[in-house]
């Protein structure tokens, strides 16, 4: 009798759990669905009152129009180059520094690590004007290098990978030294390969945030051919004020590369970001 009511109440609880999860999921997905549906409608149909849910006639021309109004090939190339170089810099420099801070003894270690920690606490906007002025002084605004510039080193990456190296027992490094590895070999051949998960997490973290960044690319490159997907999209908004089908098509173009990566590496994305954020 007692177990009966318990299992019934558990059944109700499970039912409610699914109910809320599904309702929430629908709310999360709906904007994306609406984006796709709108991108397939004609301008006239998109402003019909009352609105249609599914396009009465599927129109592909919005995608063509988005492609001709923005140089998407350049935007993709610029975004990919910016993300790739930032990721490589973050991994290479942060691995080196993270290893040194975690495993080596040297004069000035605490002060220098303090510089890393303090930088992490400051919002990036405080650097924007002088960073822009530095580039302007040497004539490097309006370039792909300008997009990469603020991401050449990563204080967060250094901190994060230092944590990873701290987790590796000292004995492993000592054993490598006894086997005749020098400092550099101990780092590259023995220690670095042990931080794979953290490096993957840092890669994803760096890529997602570089890709989402809007203020810096908007400020530093005003030439449409040198913009990123984000800043290019902001420009498209100005051109097609109210032509939402074209804007939705453009937004889809801008979202697709990261979405595809997300679908493939879904678990790594989520766990990577949980790992970087939780620290």
């Amino acid at each position, binding site marked *: 009798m007692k177990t009966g009511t318990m299992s019934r109440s558990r059944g109700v609880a499970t039912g409610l759990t699914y109910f809320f999860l599904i309702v929430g*999921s629908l*709310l999360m997905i709906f904007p994306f669905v609406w984006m796709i549906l709108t991108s397939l409608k004609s301008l006239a149909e998109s402003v019909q009152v009352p*609105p249609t849910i599914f396009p009465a006639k599927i129109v592909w021309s919005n995608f063509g129009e988005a492609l001709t109004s923005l140089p998407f090939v350049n935007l993709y190339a610029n975004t990919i180059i910016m993300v790739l170089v930032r990721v490589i810099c973050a991994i290479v420099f942060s691995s080196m520094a993270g290893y040194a801070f975690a495993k080596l003894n*040297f004069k000035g270690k605490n002060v220098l690590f303090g*510089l890393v920690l303090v930088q992490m606490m400051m919002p990036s906007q405080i650097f924007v004007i002088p960073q822009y002025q530095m580039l302007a002084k040497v004539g490097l605004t309006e370039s792909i290098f300008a997009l990469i510039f603020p991401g050449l080193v990563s204080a967060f990456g250094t901190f994060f990978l230092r944590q990873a190296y701290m987790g590796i027992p000292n004995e492993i490094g000592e054993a490598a030294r006894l086997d005749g590895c020098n400092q550099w070999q101990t780092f590259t051949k023995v220690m670095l390969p042990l931080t794979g998960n953290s490096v993957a997490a840092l890669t994803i973290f760096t890529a997602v945030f570089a890709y989402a960044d809007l203020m810096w690319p908007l400020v530093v490159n005003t030439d449409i051919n040198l913009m990123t997907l984000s*800043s290019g*999209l902001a420009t498209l908004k100005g051109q097609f004020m109210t032509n939402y089908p074209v*804007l939705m098509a453009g937004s889809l173009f801008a979202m697709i590369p990261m979405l595809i990566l997300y679908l493939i590496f879904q678990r790594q994305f989520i766990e990577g970001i949980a790992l970087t954020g939780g620290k």
Partner: protein
Amino acid sequence: MRKALSPAARKEQHWAWLMVAPTIIGLLVLNYYPLIQTFILSFSKTKTFGASTFNGINNYIEMFQSPEFWKATWNTILFCILTVPVGIILALLVAILLNAKVKFKSGFRAIYFLPMVCAPAAIAMVWRWMFNGEYGIINTVLGTKISWLTDSKTAIVACAIVAIWSSIGYDAVLLLSGLQNISKSYYEAARIDGASRVKQFFSITLPMISPTLFVTLIMRLMSSLKVYDLIYMMIDQSNPVLPDVQSLMYLFYREAFVAGNKGYASAIVIWTIFLIGIVTVIQFIGQKKWVNYDV
């Protein structure tokens, strides 16, 4: 009387310096030099093309006398009030639901996390369309005729809704990892004692997850105080409600890169840092009352 380093220790030190050099030089050039520059700029009057002259605290005086600046400060705080508590509570709810024994758990998690991998620029675009006063689907569904993005009362609410929608999945994933660390044995013991689910939540879940909750709260507050991209994409600079929505960082962007007042803009940034500092200190003092570290 310093002890001389052994040759091996000296070699180690040289390697270490070499390995931290790129990062440290980069931080000095990219962050610490600009930090000092921003500070100096905030006491300077900038003319066209780089030249600037010292003008004392005039930027700050001008700033503190500007109603637009105070409005932007209030908008930023209001944005935090509207987004952070609701966002965190919803994220905690999602995390708790995901922590239950459900099928397709990773599928649900992936769906809630989706906005995180989409550029805010693209996300804002579809929400602008859904919030559109004349043809937007939100008015159709609600049966209302609200000009969401062009009414000074609703514009910031609309922006807050988008911000909450965007951050729930990320915060939920963080909180979920906290929930998964709670040992099942606590709940078993509570069940034997006959504690109700609500009681279990308040006496086990909440205290045990409070450190994670605190980290999530700090991160969310920091990023809300710096909000820019979403409002920039939702509310155009020509939109008449801009003064009622624009955040400090939006005002900063317009002053620095549209109006060209880099000195004045620097003062705004310094003020924002100050604000973030105060909020963080309050959080760290307040945490003693509710965050439970002795686990």
